[in-house]
C-alpha cells in the first residue's frame, strides 16, 4: 500500500523531470545552446493550450496547438537570434535571458497577471483509503511516449541521422551536402516544441501566470546537467535517479526536505560524473 503510493510519487516525479527536461536536453544537451528562455516556451505552450481550450477546441487538440505554437516560436527565434550564437555559450546566456524577460513581461502586459485555467480531466481513482488523480498517470505515459518517440526519431529516421551528424560533425555534414542551417532550425524547433508540450500537459494542473515557467527551469537544467548530452542515455536515467531522491525524501520528511535532497543529489551526481550520465554510458559502451 505504502509501496504503491511511493511508486505513484516516483512515477510522477520522473514524468515531471523528463517532460521539463526533454526540450532543454535537445537544445542545451545536443546543440550546446544555453537556453534561459526554456521556461517561457513552456509558458507559451501552456497559455496557447488554455486559450485554445477556452475557445472550444477539445483538450487534446488544444495541447497540440500549444506544442505547435511553442515550436513555431522556437523556429522564429532560431532564425532571428539563436543561429548567430552557436558555439558562443556565454552570449547565448545573455540573449536567451533577455528573450525570457521580454516574453514573460510581455505576456503580463498582454494577458494580465493570470488567465483562466483548465480543469484537470479524467477524475480520480482510489487505492485503499488514498485517492489519486488519473491524469497524472497519463502524464507518466506521456513522458514514456516522449522518450520512445525521441528514440525512434533520432535512431530510425532520416532526420535523426542528419541531426546527429550535424551536431557531432557539422563541417563534415556540410561537406556531404547537408543543409545544416535547416537541420539546426528544425532541431531547435523540436526542442521548443517539446518544452511547449510540457507546458501543454501541465496546464490543467497549475495556475497560469506569466512567470509559471520559472518553476520548470531549475528542474530542467539540473536534469540535463546530471544527464549529459543525450536524451535517452542521459535525461531518462537522470530523471530516474533524481526522481527517486526527491520522492523518497518528500515521502518521509515533506516537500522542503525533498527539494533540498534533490539539489544535494545533483551536487553529488555532478561531482561523481562531471560530464553527465550519458558520457559515462558512452565510455562504458566503447
Amino acid at each position: 500500500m505504502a509501496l504503491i503510493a511511493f511508486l505513484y510519487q516516483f512515477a510522477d516525479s520522473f514524468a515531471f523531470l523528463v517532460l521539463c527536461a526533454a526540450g532543454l536536453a535537445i537544445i542545451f544537451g545536443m546543440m550546446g545552446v544555453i537556453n534561459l528562455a526554456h521556461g517561457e516556451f513552456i509558458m507559451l505552450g501552456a497559455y496557447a493550450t488554455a486559450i485554445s481550450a477556452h475557445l472550444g477546441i477539445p483538450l487534446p487538440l488544444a495541447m497540440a496547438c500549444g506544442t505547435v505554437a511553442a515550436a513555431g516560436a522556437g523556429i522564429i527565434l532560431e532564425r532571428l537570434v539563436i543561429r548567430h550564437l552557436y558555439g558562443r555559450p556565454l552570449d547565448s546566456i545573455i540573449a536567451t535571458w533577455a528573450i525570457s524577460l521580454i516574453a514573460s513581461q510581455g505576456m503580463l502586459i498582454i494577458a494580465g497577471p493570470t488567465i483562466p485555467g483548465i480543469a484537470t480531466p479524467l477524475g480520480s481513482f482510489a487505492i485503499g483509503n488514498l485517492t489519486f488523480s488519473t491524469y497524472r498517470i497519463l502524464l507518466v505515459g506521456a513522458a514514456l511516449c516522449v522518450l520512445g518517440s525521441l528514440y525512434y526519431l533520432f535512431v530510425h529516421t532520416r532526420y535523426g541521422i542528419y541531426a546527429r551528424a550535424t551536431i557531432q560533425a557539422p563541417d563534415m555534414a556540410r561537406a556531404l551536402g547537408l543543409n545544416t542551417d535547416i537541420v539546426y532550425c528544425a532541431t531547435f524547433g523540436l526542442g521548443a516544441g517539446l518544452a511547449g508540450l510540457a507546458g501543454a500537459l501541465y496546464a490543467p494542473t497549475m495556475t497560469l501566470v506569466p512567470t509559471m515557467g520559472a518553476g520548470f527551469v531549475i528542474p530542467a537544467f539540473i536534469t540535463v546537467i546530471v544527464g549529459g548530452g543525450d536524451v535517452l542515455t542521459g535525461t531518462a536515467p537522470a530523471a530516474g535517479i533524481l526522481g527517486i531522491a526527491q520522492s523518497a525524501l518528500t515521502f518521509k520528511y515533506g516537500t522542503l526536505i525533498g527539494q533540498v535532497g534533490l539539489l544535494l543529489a545533483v551536487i553529488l551526481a555532478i561531482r561523481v560524473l562531471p560530464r553527465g550520465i550519458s558520457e559515462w554510458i558512452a565510455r562504458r559502451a566503447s
Partner: protein
Amino acid sequence: MHPTTIQSARERTMRIEPMMKCLMITLLCSLCLIGTAALAVETPIKIGLLEDSTGDFAAAGIPKVHGVELAVAEINAHGGVLGRKLEIIYYDTQSDNRRYQEFARRVIYQDKVDVLFGAFSSASREAVRPIVDQAKQLYFYNNEYEGGVCDKNVFFSGEVPDQVLSKLVPWTMDRFGKNVYTIAADYNFGQISAEWIRKFVAEHHGKMVGQEFIPLSVSQFNQTISNIQAAKPDILMTLMIGANQVSFFQQAAAANLTTPMASFVNGPTFYEHKQLPPPAMNNMYIAANYMEELDTPENHAFVGRWHAKYPNEKYISQVGEDSYVGVYLYVKGVEKAGTTEKAAVIKALESGGMCVNAPEGQVCVDPKTHHTSHTISLMQVLPNHSLKRLEVWKGVQPSWLAEAGCDLTKHADQSQYTPSNPPSRK
C-alpha cells in the same frame, strides 16, 4: 525759504511716509499670505505606494494599487484633504523584497512622502519596517497578516488571526470534527499563522494531526496530498501564498481530496474561486472581512464605482478593499490633526473614535495597537464557485495584542509578537 515751510514740508512728508510704510507693509503681508495660501493649495499630499504589480504576487498587488487609486480619485473629486489634493507616487516592487527596500528608501528620502502605503507579503513588510522606523515614516500596511506587530509608526487596515481564526477554527471544528491538518507557505506569515491555528485548536480541545510548510517555489503537490489523506483530518487549514502554491487546489480536486478546507487567505487574497476552474475550491470555508460578493447596498455601490474605473478588473479582493479603506483612515487622521505632520497624524489616529464606513461595514482604529476592528464573514464556496455567507460577526476587535501588553499610546514600540512570544511588560 523760511524754516516753517521746510519743516512743515518735512512734517507733511514724514506724516505721509508712515502711512505709505503701513500701506506697503500691509500690501506685502497680503501678498505673502496669498502666496503661501496659493502654495499650500498647490502642494499635494504625497502618498508613497509600493505594491507588486508583477511577479508571484501580482494577482494580489494589482487590486491593492487600484484600491488606493480609487480612494484618492474619490477624495480629490470632493476637494482633497485640508484643501490639498492627494498624489500617489507608485513603484512596482515586482514581488521582490530587495526592490521593496530599494524603493522604500527612495520614496522616503528622495520623494519625501507624507505617508507610505504598501507591501503585501509579510516578508516584504518586515523588510521595509526597519527602514520606516529609522526614518519615523508613517506607514499603512493594508492587508490581512499573521498579527502581532506593535509599531508606533505603522497602522494596519487588514484583519489579524485573533479576529478571524478565532472564529474560523472553532466554527469548522464544531461542524466537521476535531482533527486539523495545516498546509502553509514556509515563511514568517505561514509559520506564525500556523502557530495561531495550533493555539485555537488547542483551546477548542482539538488535535493537530499534521502540518506541512512548503517553499514558495513549489508547484507540484502530489506527496502533500497523499500525506493529508494518510493523516485523515476532519479539516484542512490552508495558508497557500503565491501563484505556484495556489496550484495545490486544482491538484487536490483532481486527486479527489474531499476534506473540508478552511482559510483566511485563499479566496480573499488571490480570488482562487475566480481563477481556478470549478470545482477546485468546492468545500472551502473562507473567513474574510471583505469579498466582492458581499450583499449590502454599500458594497454594491462600491463595486459599481470600482468597475466604472476599472472595467477589466478580474476581482475586487479583500486586499483591494483594505487598501481603499487605508486611504480613508489616513485622510481621517490628517483631517483631525489639521496637518500632515507625521507625529500629529499618529496622535490623531490614536485619539479614539477614528472610524470609517467601509464597504464591509464600520472599521475603527484601535488606539493602543494601531490595528482595526472589522466585520468578519464566514462564507462557503459552492461547487460552481459562488459564495454563500453562513455567519457574520460585526465589530470584531483586534484584542489579543492589547491584552498581551502592547499600548502604543503609552510606550512606543517596534516589535512583532506571537502567542509564544508576547510582549513581556510588567
